[in-house]
């Protein structure tokens, strides 16, 4: 089993969610994160212009079976792309175990 973590633009989230739904991925976990990266924003406060250093982003965590993982990555990449600096990153890594708290299902059954 894989865990996929994608750091994406806020504005692309709806597209990504719809695209994931299209390939049958309806379950995932989302969190608010701050991305420090290439993309910069201008801020002005009381006469001083500055760069807030980070941009608000969303992190999507998806647990997936090995065979499904590639498709999920591809889907996020396509739906999340604007082509401009700041589109974000996806990582994927192996996990040992998945448990469903509700019952005794594990691993593939629990995803």
């Amino acid at each position, binding site marked *: 089993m894989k865990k996929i973590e994608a750091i994406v633009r806020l504005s692309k989230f709806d597209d990504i969610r719809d695209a994931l739904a299209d390939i049958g991925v309806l379950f995932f976990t989302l969190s608010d994160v701050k991305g420090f990266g290439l993309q910069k924003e201008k*801020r*002005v*406060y*009381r*006469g*001083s*212009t*500055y760069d807030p250093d980070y941009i608000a982003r969303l992190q999507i965590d998806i647990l997936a079976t090995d065979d499904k993982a590639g498709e999920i990555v591809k889907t996020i990449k396509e739906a999340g792309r604007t082509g401009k600096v700041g589109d974000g990153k996806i990582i994927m890594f192996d996990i040992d175990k998945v448990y469903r708290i509700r019952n005794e299902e594990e691993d593939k059954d629990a995803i």
Partner: protein
Amino acid sequence: MIDTLLTHDNIALAGDLANRIDANTSAITETTFLSNNLWIMVAAALVFVMHLGFSALEAGFVRRKNVVNILFKNAMIIAIGLLSYWLCGFGLMYPGEAFSGSFFGFAGFGLNPGETGQTSAYGDYTYYTDFIFQAMFAATCATIVSGAVAERIKLEAFLLFSTLFVAISYPITGMWKWGYGWLDALGFYDFAGSTLVHSVGGWGALAAVMLLGPRLGKYTSKGIKPIPGHSMPMAAIGVFLLWFGWYGFNGGSVLSADPAGVSLVFVTTSLAAAAGAVGAFLTSFTLFKSHDLSMVLNGILGGLVGITAGADQMSPNEAVIVGLVAGVIIPISVVAFDKAKLDDPVGATSVHLVCGIWGTLAVGLLGSKAGMDQFINQLIGIGAVGLFTFTFAFLLFFLLKKTIGIRVHDEEEDRGLDIIEHDMSAYNL
């Protein structure tokens, strides 16, 4: 004989009528007194709202980690302000005729309406109305300081400073003009306190800011790093409430409900605030290519502070000019203070000190009192009050710095005053 009788009756009748006329006349006096007094009381309640306005504005302009602290300070300031004004402030500021034209006087501790204080013999309002209206003003000057020193001052030091500032410094300079002291005799004019209230608060703020130093991380080697306030809505609500309260601050300073006087003041106050917004909007957009809400909010306040000295002397058109100039001043002044590394989270020095000075000078330049003599009197008043207040505040803060200390440790500042001083957070789940 009948005639004679009749005429004698007539005389009696006339006497009776005269008595009834006199009764009417004094009843009219009483009812006018009642209405005038009513307005000053309502105005006092409106000035009270300004303390809420300040609290909200200052809370909005600081970081989340210092919100409880600023609210605590503001809640205590109004309490301390009222109590110290009751204890000695009122007596220092209005020492009575005996001290006309002088630098200092004292009517004694506490309140003493005397025999006639609560009657129309006292004036257009009662002694207690007089006290409460003035008392609401008094705390204002400490609230102004509170914003400028936010996010780094020690609570005890601030409370001590505020108590002495409101109890001693403010009433002394206030007495110079409003207590019929030497500045009044000179011809200095300050209708509702551009200098006596706002600049006084501003000078106190300046002294404190100089001795405190800037917040950590504000002025870095790479330049100014702005520290945005945690809630713009709270700041905006604060400014609207201040504007609302200002109708009492300026409108009540007519010291009667005189229709011509108060309605003019309402108009000049409103137009100056509006023009202040426009002035700050245009200037900050020109300078920074941005629609900076915090500047527009400060611009409104700048316009209000600016018109305060001459709200009863300006025509509506002149009020627009006064407000517009104040609005233009705000962004320039805010940047200038920042350049001088004087860190003032809420812009109190720009709003209250700089626009307070501008407003006081404006009385010499525009409106029915304009003229060279007046201008010089205004300069003298600004200078004298400024010198006294700044010296008082500076020495007091200096003393506190050398004794109990005025600034929290860097680590504490970093952690935030809410946890350090109050063991609580402003926002919870």
